[in-house]
């Protein structure tokens, strides 16, 4: 008897439907095999399903069982086919009907319980697009699958429960949306915990508002990492659309923990500088998203920027420009989104003190030049804001009431940032961009008209500081962001003058 159960296969971020065909023949020697380009983990499914069923007290047929994962020419991986296979075998053997319009997904344990399996969110997305209404998923994946509304989701705890449900005696109670856990909006660090560093904080505020990439330079222990960690707390919350995009990537990467749901917090990734090329960009024979995609719509913080291998740094160029990274394999090209903000920090020299505590610096000018050269021009071109973070005497400042009273907390800054983002959203309604940092020269001429004195100021600065044409446009973008933060339609003299503060470090 031939039974068909529906599931999916995810390659990169693309999901395709997979029909799990189960055929049981009571002719010849007992036999159990899976065809349709399964990988090792699917092949081992045989043992899990068989043992799981037997341990649950469900009869396992001693006939010839053939399973085909169609389409048979697409390679498949993962343990998610255990549940569809078990369902198929139960239905074929016991003569139950497979529930209509249903997708099955989940790994079976040897004791018959259903384990957490990654990618449930992609299953829901596929279900919505292809008009499947019912999902059978492991109980721990329910929150993740419920990220898409309008689906009936059956949390399956074990095979026994599934058996009774298929038989129709005891039905599994579908998951109701009400149980979805509230997203966590608390942050570990707040801007008001950082004393001093007003310029750096202001630069972060600008970066958050206009989506500008930022490079912080300073000696060790000056607070660059702390600033970066607090950065997330001033970013506007993810919109629903953005949350779906982010959750999709995280689901594909298997980064949603059991019980996890839609990702509502902006991603903040801080890979160590020993990261490999594949870890940064994404990789594997069937590629998984790398750090740049995991920071999609969020922040990629690269501490000790010049210490990253050159190949990793250069790999950032295309994704930073296009907002998408394409990985080509023999089986095809896979695209992952990568619209992230780069937050980088670096020391001024190998020992870290050059220019800040000259007497402590032990580096020769040659070493310093080599160190600076590690970050290539094209990468620096893609960074708008540059700021120095000198060490501050925290003890002295933290005892000053006046200083403490003036500290703005993250919530206040976030309100301003969110408003600036809304202004940009309205401005770019008819353009395919979202924030000021993404403006091309065409947008700049359209939206950033400079009054003659403002332009004169900018030109003066360009001549004095010997800035490139690209820096010229960067400064206009930053001035636009400063004006937006002040809710001003025109770029004023003050805005431009402040923007010039964040030009390249000399």
């Amino acid at each position, binding site marked *: 008897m031939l039974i068909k159960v529906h599931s999916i296969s995810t390659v990169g971020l693309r999901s395709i439907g997979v029909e799990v065909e189960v055929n049981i023949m009571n002719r010849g020697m007992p036999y159990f095999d899976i065809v349709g380009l399964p990988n090792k983990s699917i092949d081992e499914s045989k043992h899990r399903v068989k043992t799981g069923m037997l341990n649950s007290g469900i009869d396992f047929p001693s006939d010839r069982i053939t399973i085909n994962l169609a389409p048979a020419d697409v390679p498949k991986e993962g343990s998610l086919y255990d549940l569809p296979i078990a369902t198929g075998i139960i239905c074929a053997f016991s003569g139950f009907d497979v529930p209509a319009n249903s997708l099955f997904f989940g790994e079976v344990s040897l004791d018959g319980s259903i384990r957490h399996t990654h990618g449930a969110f992609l299953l829901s997305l596929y279900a919505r697009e292809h008009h499947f209404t019912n999902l059978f998923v492991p109980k721990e994946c329910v929150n993740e699958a419920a990220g898409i509304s309008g689906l009936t989701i059956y949390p399956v705890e074990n095979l026994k429960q599934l058996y009774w449900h298929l038989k129709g005696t005891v039905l599994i109670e579908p998951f109701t949306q009400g149980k979805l856990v509230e997203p966590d909006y608390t942050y570990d660090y707040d801007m008001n915990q950082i004393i001093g560093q007003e310029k750096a904080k202001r630069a972060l505020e600008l970066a958050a508002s206009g989506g500008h990439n930022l490079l912080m330079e300073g000696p060790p222990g000056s607070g660059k990492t702390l600033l970066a960690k607090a950065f997330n707390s001033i970013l506007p919350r993810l919109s629903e659309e953005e949350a779906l995009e982010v959750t999709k990537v995280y689901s594909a990467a298997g980064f949603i923990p059991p019980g996890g749901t839609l990702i509502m917090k902006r991603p903040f990734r801080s890979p160590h500088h020993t990261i490999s090329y594949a870890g940064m960009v994404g990789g594997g024979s069937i590629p998984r998203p790398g750090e740049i995609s995991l920071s999609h719509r969020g922040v990629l913080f690269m501490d000790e920027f010049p210490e990253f291998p050159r190949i990793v740094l250069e790999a950032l160029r295309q994704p930073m420009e296009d907002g998408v990274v394409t990985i080509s394999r023999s089986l095809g090209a896979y695209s992952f989104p990568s619209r992230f903000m780069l937050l980088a920090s670096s020391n001024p020299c190998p020992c870290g003190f050059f220019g800040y505590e*000259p*007497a402590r610096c032990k580096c020769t000018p*040659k070493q310093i030049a080599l160190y600076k050269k590690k970050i290539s021009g094209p990468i620096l071109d893609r960074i708008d804001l540059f700021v120095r973070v000198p060490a501050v005497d925290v003890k002295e400042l933290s005892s000053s009431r006046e200083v403490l009273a003036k500290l703005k907390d993250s919530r206040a800054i976030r309100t301003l940032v969110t408003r600036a983002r809304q202004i940009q959203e309205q401005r770019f309604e008819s353009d395919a961009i979202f924030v000021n940092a993404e403006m091309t020269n065409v947008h700049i001429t359209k939206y950033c008209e400079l009054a003659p004195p403002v332009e004169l100021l900018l030109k003066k600065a360009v001549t004095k500081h010997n800035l490139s044409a690209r820096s010229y446009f960067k400064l206009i973008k930053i001035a636009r962001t400063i004006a937006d933060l002040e809710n001003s339609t025109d770029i004023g003299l003050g805005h431009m003058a*402040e923007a010039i*503060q964040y030009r390249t470090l000399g």
Partner: protein
Amino acid sequence: MIHVLTKEDALYPKLLKQAPRAPSKLFYKGTLDTPLFESCLGVVGSRRMTSYGKQAVKELVGTVAAAGITIVSGFMYGIDATAHKVCIDSGGRTIAVMPCGIDYIHPENQTELYASILNHSGLVLSEYEGTLKPQMWMYPSRNRIVAGLCQAILVVEASVNSGSLITASFAKRFSRQIFVVPGSIFSENSLGVYQLFEEGAKLVISPSDILDFYQFSRLPQRRNFTQLALGVTEENGLEGEILSYLRREPMSLDELSRVMKMGFGKLSSLLTVLCLEEKVLEDNGKYYVN
């Protein structure tokens, strides 16, 4: 073109010839004439120059060089290189005494400065031929030539046991005048300077202190002090306030915004404008009055 100068040559610097252990042969590149050696000031100091040191060199060497005094230094990075640079920028002539062979540029990353010295009728000197690389012992030996060439030397920043003190001890042996620039008591770079002062070096706080010694008639005013007196009445409003704070002490934007109790955005705009008007200079995140 490389030339050789022997002790018997008429062009051989007279002052150096009188010094004990003067090199019998000098290799040189660039422009050689008698006026170049007439009034020479050696400028030496730390490789690990602070922003303060840089400001001091700009203020003192700039004026002295513009008045026509040749600036002699060792072409090392830090104070040396800054002295050469400032001298050229103020239209003066400069001599770089190399610790290595005449055909070798050390440190290698200063080729631009090297070319600039030669292009501005300056001179590059060495007692070694060819592309000999510098060894540890060659630096003190080079310092003896710097001291020998000059009537006086100016020590800007020097820690204890530094090469600058070696130059100073040669200068003392050759009975040359030693000038020192005072520094912060908290800076390691002041310890050597303090030692020299204890031993009788003369303190310099304005270019005229040096020009007096050379009996140059053109006495520029003590800029900083006159400005200090005039400043407040001259510039009024916020600009004046900023300048008066910066005259007391160079500060970063953060510090300034704290002491002035002023919003950050407004202050940074003002400073940008002051920088563009060249009333204020920025170096490594700190602002100085120009």
